[in-house]
C-alpha cells in the first residue's frame, strides 16, 4: 500500500508537483498518465526516495520514505526513466549487483537472480555484456533489476518506450503477470497501454492530479453525447436538410468526401436517444443509401484530452475572477473583451502549434515504423 499525502515539489521557479494526494492498494496496477513534463517522473522519484518532496509525506507499506527510508526502499523495485544500467557488466553480473544492493545474500541471492533472469527471458543472453544488447533486451535487464528480491511494490517509469510492437506486448503481459503478486505503478503517455494494463488511472497535468478512476469510468464520465458515424451515398444532397426533418438530431457534420461518391457524416444527438433505428427508417425515404453505420466510442484518448482541456479552462476562469475583482466595473468590460480576444488568439496559436507538433510526431513515428519494417 502506498499513500501519497499532500505532496509538493518545488524547484527554484517551478512547482513540478503541486499538492497531490492518492493511495494505491496492495496488488493494484495503477497507471500514471500525463503529457510530457506533467510531473510523472518527479512523483515516481519521490515515491522511490530518490528525491525528497518539499512538503508532504509518502508512506510505502507503512514506512515513511524519508524517515524510515531503508525499510521503505526495501519494499520497492524501481526501473527509472531511460533504463540506466551498468553497461560494462554482463546481464548476470548486473542483476547480481542489484540483488546485493537490495541486501540479498548467499543461496537466496543466487536463486532470486536465476529466477528473475528466467522470468524476464534473459537466460540466452545472461553472459553477454549489457553494452552489446539491443534496446529491448536492455529494457528487460532494467526490469530484472527492479524485480530481483521480490519487492512488494514495483515502479516502472515508461517501461515500453523504444520497444518494437512485439516486445511491447511481451512486456505488457509480463507487467500484467506481475500485477497478480505485486503492487505496480507505471507511467506512460501511451493511453491505450494504460487502458489495457491498468486497473486504475491517475491523470496528471502540470503537477496536479486531474482525475483518478478506472479507464472505463473515465471514458463514461467524459462522454456527453451520442455520436454516430454514417457513410452514405447521397445523390440528391438530402443529408444537409436531415436536421430539419428529424427533431432528435442536434448536429450533422460532413467528415469525409470519399472518391467513390460516398460521404461520411457524423450525426450527434442527445445522450438518451438512440438514433440508429430512426436513421434506418428515415434515410431510405430520402433516397440515401447507408453503406456503413457505427457508434463513435469515446476513447480514453478523448477523455484525457478533455480532462486536460477542462483543467486549462478552469485555470482561465480562476484568472478571470481574480482580474475582475481588481478592476473597476467600468473598465472591466473593455478589458475583458480585449483579454478574451488575446486569449482566443493565443489559444488558436497554441492549438495550431499542437496540431503541427502532432502531425510531425505522427510522420516521424510512421517513418520509424517503415524503417523498422524494412529492417
Amino acid at each position, binding site marked *: 500500500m502506498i499513500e501519497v499525502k499532500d505532496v509538493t515539489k518545488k524547484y527554484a521557479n517551478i512547482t513540478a508537483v503541486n499538492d497531490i494526494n492518492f493511495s494505491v492498494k496492495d496488488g493494484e496496477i495503477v497507471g500514471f498518465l500525463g503529457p510530457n513534463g506533467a510531473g510523472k517522473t518527479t512523483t515516481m522519484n519521490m515515491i522511490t*526516495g*530518490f528525491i*525528497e518532496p518539499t512538503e508532504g509525506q509518502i508512506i510505502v507499506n507503512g514506512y515513511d520514505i524519508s524517515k524510515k527510508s531503508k525499510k521503505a526502499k526495501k519494499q520497492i523495485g524501481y526501473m*527509472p526513466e531511460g533504463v540506466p544500467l551498468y553497461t560494462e557488466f554482463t546481464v548476470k553480473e548486473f542483476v547480481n549487483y542489484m540483488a546485493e544492493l537490495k541486501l540479498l545474500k548467499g543461496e537466496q541471492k543466487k536463486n532470486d537472480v536465476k529466477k528473475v533472469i528466467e522470468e524476464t527471458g534473459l537466460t540466452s543472453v545472461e553472459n553477454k555484456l549489457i553494452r552489446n544488447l539491443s534496446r529491448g533486451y536492455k529494457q528487460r535487464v532494467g526490469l530484472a533489476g527492479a524485480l530481483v528480491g521480490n519487492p512488494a511494490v514495483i515502479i516502472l517509469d515508461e517501461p515500453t518506450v523504444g520497444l518494437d510492437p512485439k516486445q511491447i506486448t511481451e512486456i505488457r503481459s509480463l507487467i500484467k503477470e506481475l500485477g497478480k503478486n505485486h503492487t505496480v505503478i507505471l507511467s506512460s503517455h501511451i493511453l491505450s497501454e494504460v487502458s489495457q494494463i491498468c486497473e486504475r488511472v491517475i491523470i496528471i497535468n502540470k503537477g496536479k492530479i486531474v482525475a483518478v478512476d478506472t479507464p472505463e469510468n473515465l471514458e463514461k464520465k467524459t462522454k456527453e453525447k451520442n455520436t454516430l458515424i454514417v457513410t452514405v451515398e447521397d445523390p440528391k444532397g438530402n443529408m444537409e436538410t436531415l436536421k430539419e426533418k428529424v427533431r432528435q438530431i442536434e448536429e450533422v457534420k460532413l467528415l469525409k468526401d470519399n472518391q467513390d461518391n460516398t460521404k461520411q457524416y457524423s450525426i450527434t444527438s442527445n445522450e438518451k436517444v438512440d438514433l440508429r433505428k430512426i436513421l434506418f427508417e428515415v434515410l431510405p425515404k430520402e433516397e440515401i443509401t447507408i453503406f456503413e453505420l457505427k457508434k463513435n466510442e469515446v476513447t480514453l484518448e478523448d477523455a484525457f484530452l478533455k480532462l486536460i482541456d477542462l483543467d486549462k479552462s478552469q485555470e482561465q476562469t480562476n484568472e478571470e475572477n481574480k482580474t475582475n475583482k481588481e478592476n473597476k466595473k467600468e473598465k472591466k468590460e473593455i478589458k475583458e473583451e480585449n483579454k478574451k480576444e488575446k486569449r482566443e488568439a493565443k489559444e488558436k496559436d497554441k492549438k495550431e502549434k499542437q496540431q503541427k507538433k502532432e502531425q510531425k510526431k505522427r510522420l516521424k513515428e510512421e517513418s520509424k515504423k517503415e524503417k523498422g519494417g524494412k529492417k
Partner: protein
Amino acid sequence: MFAVYKKELKSYFLSPIGYIAIGVFLFIFSLIFLLTTFNYGIYDMGNLYYSTAAYGLLIIIPIISMRAFAEERKSGTEQLLLTSPRSITEVVLGKFFAATTLIIIILAFSLIYYAILCFFKAPNLVTTLIAMLGFLLVAMAAISAGMFISSLTENQIIAAVLTFVLLFIPGLTGMFSALDLMNSYQKFPSGIISLTEVISLLAYMLMFILFTIIIMQRRKSIK
C-alpha cells in the same frame, strides 16, 4: 558497503581506468628511478615514493576519482544506487575504499623496484613500508577530495580538471598550504611516522568524505 565496494573495484578493471592508473604510476616511478637511483646511484626508496607522490598523484588521482559520482549521475545509474536500501554513507565509503584498494594494488607493483635493489643491497624494508604507508595516506586524502569534486558535477572531465587544480595549486602558491598534502608527507619518506602528519592527513580525508556525504544528501532535496 561491501556490495558497492566489490562492484566499484570490479569496474576499475572492467574499464581501462585501473590499468591506466597502474601504467601511469609505473611510468612515473620508473622515470624517477631512472633519474635518481640509476643515474646517480641515490639509494633511497623514500625519495622515490616522495617524488612519485608529488608528481604522479596529480595525474593518477583525477583518473581514479573523476568517475566516482559523475559517471553514475550522467548515466542515471545514480538512481539505482540511491533508491536501493543502502545509505549514502555506505555508498560513499564503498567507493572510497574501492579506490583505496586500487592504490594498494598500485603500490604492490612498486615492490618490483625494491626487489631490483635487493640484487645489490637490500634497502631497509621497514623504512620502505613506512614510506608506502605515507604514500597510501596521501593518496587516500587526495581521493576523498577527488570524490567530493566528482559529486558536484556530472561531467567527468570537469571533475578531473578541478581535482587536478585542487591538488596542484596549494603546493604552487603556498597560500593554501593547509590544503597541500605534500606538507604532510615530509617525514614518512625517511621512515618516521609523525603523529602530526598522520592526523592532518586523516582529518583532510574525513573532511572531504563528510563533504561528499553532505552533498549527496543535500542533492536529494535540491534535485
